[in-house]
């Protein structure tokens, strides 16, 4: 039989999973009434599911290894499409038209979800500066987001300042916090940096949770005003549409700024820093300044996103700024392909919209989300869109030199 070895292996794997999940899935102890519930049906489900899935899995790998080996440098079809003007120009126009029409055809609920997704686009693009461009693994990005949200809520509560005053203030405060975090971690490498940023974020969250006099503790701050529109009172539906367009505008601004920065002097310095810190220093790049700039700029967008988040939900508490949130934003950046703007946007929309539309699945939503993260990484470990890196040509004495090798 053609598939006999695969079937045999799948059978063993199914047995293994039945054994593995036995205590947690089958037995449920009620320690109060001292009864044990045996749920044998789960065992059968797991066994058959593991059998089918592992069989498909093996077929996939067999086909993949039978096909010609793909070179790592080869870009995917999606990536090539995205860098071809013939394809992306009409594509952009369609997207722009859809963005403009969307709030007039969609329901209030859907506009709200989309606004949330756009906030995450901003967050993803901001973290992309730190992780994707400068290679600084930040596991506490949510701290800057919290700084933005709390500066809007608190300054509004105490001093009655408005949204438009506090949007730049929140961004600035977050940037300041970014530099504050950036200083002690300048000497740290890779994963030490990751844990220190995580530590800063957790400290901030715990302080917000416990310092009742300052931040109103776990109960949070409510009745945060929505942004004003030239002094006109807006209904709830209108202000949702307004919020949506505000975010579209800010996202376009973000994309523009980041696109310009990416190919500027500091942007290239970041990429050099990511690729090789030592060689980068030898080239005369000020490592300290480049790193601090990455932290400050990344934090600026998070601060703005935080202000917008507070204005949109009109209620914030520390529970919105947990590590899971940082992990989600990081997942957006990695899934988007580390440094690719289009990739980050697609990934942000996918990661935020999918769980929303999966709400019908109820409790199974998060478990599927976890599984989806693993699967996406296994099938596309380099992200949806792998940035090709700009090629620079150096001309001396009128003769074009050989184009530089593309960055990996």
């Amino acid at each position, binding site marked *: 039989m053609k598939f006999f070895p695969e079937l045999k292996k799948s059978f063993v794997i199914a047995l293994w999973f039945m054994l593995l999940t036995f205590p*947690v899935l089958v037995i449920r102890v009620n*320690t109060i009434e001292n009864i044990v519930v045996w749920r044998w049906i789960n065992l059968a489900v797991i066994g058959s599911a593991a059998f089918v899935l592992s069989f498909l899995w093996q077929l996939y790998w067999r086909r993949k290894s039978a096909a010609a080996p793909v070179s790592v440098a080869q870009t995917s079809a999606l990536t090539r499409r995205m860098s071809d003007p013939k394809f992306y120009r009409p594509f952009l126009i369609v997207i722009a038209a859809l963005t403009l029409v969307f709030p007039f055809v969609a329901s209030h609920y859907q506009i709200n979800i989309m606004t949330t997704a756009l906030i995450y686009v901003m967050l993803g693009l901001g973290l992309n500066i730190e992780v994707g461009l400068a290679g600084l693994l930040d596991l506490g990005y949510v701290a800057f987001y919290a700084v933005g949200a709390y500066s809007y809520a608190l300054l509004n509560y105490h001093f009655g300042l408005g949204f438009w005053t506090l949007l730049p203030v929140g961004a600035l405060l977050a940037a300041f916090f970014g530099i504050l975090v950036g200083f002690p971690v300048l000497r740290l490498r*890779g994963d030490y940096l990751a844990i220190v940023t995580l530590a800063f974020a957790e400290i901030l969250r715990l302080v917000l949770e416990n310092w009742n006099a300052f931040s109103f503790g776990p109960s949070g701050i409510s009745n945060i005003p929505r942004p004003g529109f030239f002094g006109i009172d807006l209904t709830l539906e209108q202000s949702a549409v307004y919020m949506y367009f505000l975010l579209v505008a800010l996202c376009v601004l973000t994309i523009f700024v980041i696109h310009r920065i990416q190919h500027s002097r500091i942007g290239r310095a970041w990429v050099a820093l990511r690729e090789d810190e030592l060689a980068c220093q030898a080239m005369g790049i000020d490592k300290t300044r480049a790193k601090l700039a990455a932290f400050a700029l990344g934090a600026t967008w998070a601060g703005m996103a935080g202000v917008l988040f507070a204005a949109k939900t009109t209620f914030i508490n520390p529970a919105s700024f947990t*590590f899971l949130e940082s992990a989600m934003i990081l997942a957006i950046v990695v899934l988007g392909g580390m440094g690719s703007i289009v990739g980050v946007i697609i990934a942000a929309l996918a990661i935020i919209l999918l769980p929303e539309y999966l709400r019908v699945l109820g409790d199974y939503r998060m478990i599927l989300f976890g599984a989806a993260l693993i699967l996406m990484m296994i099938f596309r470990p380099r992200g949806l869109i792998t940035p090709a890196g700009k090629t620079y040509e150096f001309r001396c004495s009128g003769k074009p030199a050989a184009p530089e090798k593309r960055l990996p």
Partner: protein
Amino acid sequence: MNFFWDLLLGGLTRGSIYALIALGYTMVYGILQLINFAHGEIYMLGAFTALIVASILTMQGLTGLPVLILAGLVAVLYASAYGFTVEKIAYKPLRQASRLSPLISAIGMSIFLQNYVMLAQTSDFLPFPNLLPPSDFLDAISVWIGPSDFVIIVTSAVVMIALSLLLKFTKMGRAMRATAQDREMAMLTGVDVNRIISRTFIIGSALAAIGGILIASHVGRINFYIGFNAGIKAFTAAVLGGIGSIPGAMLGGLVLGLAESFGTGYISSDYESVFAFAILILILIFKPDGILGRSSQQKV
């Protein structure tokens, strides 16, 4: 003085548990340079398995030492099996990918396992039975030290010594250290690197499960979310001691436990974790490679 002694004991107890879990982090990191975010979930699964087995045995009328040994054994076996499977599913296919991809898949695995236990069992806190059999010896020393504190400190010390001996003197330990130093070179000298990685996950998970059982019977209640906090703390401990270093993880765990204990005792009990993270940042500012980490000179 008495207050000080209590805090010291509490810190040592807590620190031993952190150290046990941190060992799993540091071993995996040493070999794969991967922050295994699902490690805390293995610890939680160990505690849950122990709870289930212990409850069933207690309902059958068994008590005392046999329950403790059986529940512990089953929990350690299952946690190891979970660790092994997690590595095969979420990390092995990503061996060649960039460093961040396995990190995301680890976060995905952590979310998956938390929700798996929540859906299959319950989202409420479950009471964990006190598995310690009464003994004259423990009663006698209870003036000085709580029975479960004593058991936790002694068990962790024994386990850690056993691990150090294993790594130092056995062939497998040597292969593990070789793989941690240079994976490719170890492969060239005939070490089956994949098998070593699997065994690292198995041993790390077993340690986490022991930690899980000890702390669950000490605190007396568990839920599906305990792994997250413990995981973050243990990771902090591993980094504090110098990630990749085995004695570093033990020391880091103890320092973290003591910092939390004295911080809550003398300053404020609301900011327990803040003390842990603050000490981490402070130490890393002055020693960027952790307390016992080798300061690696960067070379071109």
